[in-house]
């Protein structure tokens, strides 16, 4: 579904279903079946997945959260943010420190990570009030470097370069599997929340910001407030991601939150599809799995020196994907699916 200008569009589904009076109920059936299958698959995944696949699935879900958040800021509200991984770092350090020093429960730490990142997002969102586009991009870059500096230098709190070692958390007594379930639940909830956001006034205001922000102001939308909110909300999602990452990898150090990681998430948004929750899911999954798939493909091709060329190859493919998608399918993987589904007819 294109959430770009919901009030102005005639739903694309209407013409198709007009001629087939029986399809709405059939749709309902397929919906339910589809959801059940999805739910069952997610629930039973740990039973047949290897330790490695479970690891990757958890990682994908965690990345989905951050991508969804970035999509809110960039895809929906049109604010260019190149410092996303710094907010992930804020969430990671905040929650790790609470866990290490106060032993607070995991859910509390996750919430705290989100709140901390939200607040920091407000602070760094401030420049977006006065500047836009390319200038904003550099201001977010400045945010990235400043936060990295803080992570690296505030040794007494953040452990400096060595970072923090985080004790494990056993969720429901089920170890890795328990953690996987927790992450899946959090991810699903946040995705639903994001999707619902764009049915509310707040969400529509974001979209208006992206399209014509001065017109939005004329319409009575408080541009300043909503810009800040878009930034901070995206940052809050990043904070949740950070909190989960801290417990997942059991280390937090500044080199996990660099410019290259921010670009990773931007690519996930672009490749998956801007302004689309499905796009966030696809983009995160794709970007996370791509290096692994590439590695396996190269290994199958059978070169002994695979490991050495993997990294440059990854950069080339990564870059080529971004460029190709932007040039030929700007709505990303979500857009591709859309086309396949409606048989090539554009639904704009």
């Amino acid at each position, binding site marked *: *579904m294109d959430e770009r200008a919901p009030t102005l569009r005639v739903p694309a*589904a209407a013409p198709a279903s007009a001629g087939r009076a029986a399809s709405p*109920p059939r*749709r*309902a*059936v*397929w*919906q*339910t079946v*589809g*959801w059940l*299958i*999805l739910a069952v*698959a997610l629930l039973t995944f740990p039973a047949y*997945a290897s*330790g*490695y*696949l479970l*690891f*990757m*699935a958890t*990682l*994908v879900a965690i990345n989905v959260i951050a991508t969804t958040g970035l999509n809110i800021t960039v895809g929906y509200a049109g604010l260019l943010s190149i410092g996303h991984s710094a907010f992930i770092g804020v969430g990671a350090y905040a929650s790790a420190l609470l866990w290490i020093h106060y032993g607070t429960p995991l859910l509390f730490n996750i919430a705290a990570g989100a709140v901390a990142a939200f607040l920091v997002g407000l602070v760094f969102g401030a420049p977006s009030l006065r500047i836009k586009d390319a200038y904003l991009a550099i201001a977010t870059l400045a945010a990235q470097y400043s936060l990295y500096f803080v992570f690296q230098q505030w040794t007494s709190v953040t452990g*400096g370069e*060595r970072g923090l070692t985080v*004790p*494990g958390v056993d969720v429901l007594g089920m170890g890795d599997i328990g953690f996987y379930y927790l992450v899946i639940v959090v991810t699903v909830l946040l995705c*639903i929340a994001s*999707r*619902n956001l764009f049915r509310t006034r707040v969400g529509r205001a974001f979209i208006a910001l992206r399209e014509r922000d001065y017109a939005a102001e004329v319409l009575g939308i408080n541009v300043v407030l909503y810009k800040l909110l878009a930034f901070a909300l995206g940052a809050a999602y990043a904070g949740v991601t950070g909190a989960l990452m801290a417990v997942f*990898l*059991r*280390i937090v*150090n500044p*080199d*996990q939150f660099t410019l290259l990681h921010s670009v990773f998430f931007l690519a996930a948004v672009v490749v998956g599809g801007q302004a689309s*929750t*499905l796009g966030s*899911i*696809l983009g995160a*999954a*794709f970007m996370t*799995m791509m290096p*692994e*798939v590439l590695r*396996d*493909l190269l*290994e*199958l091709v059978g070169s*002994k020196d695979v*490991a*050495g060329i*993997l*990294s*440059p190859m990854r950069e080339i493919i990564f870059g080529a994907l971004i460029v190709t998608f932007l040039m030929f399918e700007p709505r990303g*993987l*979500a857009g591709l*699916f*859309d086309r396949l*589904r409606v048989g090539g007819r554009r639904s704009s």
Partner: protein
Amino acid sequence: MPGVRVPRQLKQAMGGDQAMFRKWEALVVVGALGAIASLAGTSAAAQDIKFSLQLPLTGPIAFTGQLNQAGWQHAVDWINKNGGVKGRKLVPIVYDSEYKVEVGIAGWRKAIAGGDIAFSLGDGTPFIRAVSPENNDRHKILMSNTGYASDLVDAKKYPYHILLGPTYSDQIDMLYRYIQSKKGSAAPKIALVYTATEFGRDPIEHARKRAKDLGFQIVAEEETKWSGIDVTPHVIKLRNAAPDYVIFHGYAGNLWPEILKLSREYGIKSEFMGTVYGAQADLVRGVGPAADGFLGVAPFEMNVAGQKGWAMQAIDAALKGWGKPYEGYTNVGYIQGWVIALFMRDVVAKAIEQSKPLTGDNLVEFARNVKNWDSGGMLGLPASMVDQRLPYGVVYRFSVSKESFSFKPAVDWVKVD
């Protein structure tokens, strides 16, 4: 079936009609990707001995990482051709960690998921620090790494880690031994030049303390960035401090050569020295005539041609057959692979001999108690483990000119106490 009623709120929350298919399709795609990813697993047979190696094949220390990989590959080939590990094949599983901790950890977990890892090599101390808590509790796999951090001798923090070489603090001690041997009546003046990283700062505290104990005077401490900047201010400060000796530590491969060259141009007359990674033969050679007289610590023999030890001869053969230019010497990064591979072969072989399962607890026992290990010439003395490391090394003096390049021991093989 018209009768199925999904609550309207739920349906709306799920995004209405169109979202259904897409989420379903999304799952299919993700599932397919996951399936492909798990397709090419490790193709090792049941009896094989598996080692998981995280090496920095790309990234800032790729020079060393790639040498490491080559050394391992050659060593493993040689071992498998010469009876394997008590007849069993040695299979290394290599991952490029890009010198990033989380990438290394992901690779390590992937290898562990394949099961039966007897030994793990990390790409540096940050990796070991990160995985030790989990490894100590759960996996208990014997580990080593390519770095020589000083606190790895702590058996309580790192019960499953062994270090096959001297720590950075040990290396500073070796350099100090050289300075001690040259000491006249005046207190030697020392400058420490190191990077603002954990790697760089590792032995500095110890260096200060030892200097005080030995009556050396530290006249300058220059903490520099890790890469990519103009070094002139640092050289200016060195010139002002006028040390007798300048010690480099913590560099990957750049920056210190420039400092050295610039120092010579500024007329600084000190003797320059470096710890292990700052003293790799080809690196020093690349600096050119400014590095003539440079002193470097090495934990293994770097001169290969003409050596008598059986391992050195195997290395000689491997280097000749490699196809890369070979002039009778090699780099620490390359030999490190051989040393660790052969050491581990002996440790695992002992466990197999005594029919002990290859768990970390057992292997660590054997490893820690190795005495007078015959390294086939790679180490200049019979090596025994002290505090879970091999505190042995040699200090080479390099002779570099436009036409020629060579190095020989300035301080012969020592054991650091």
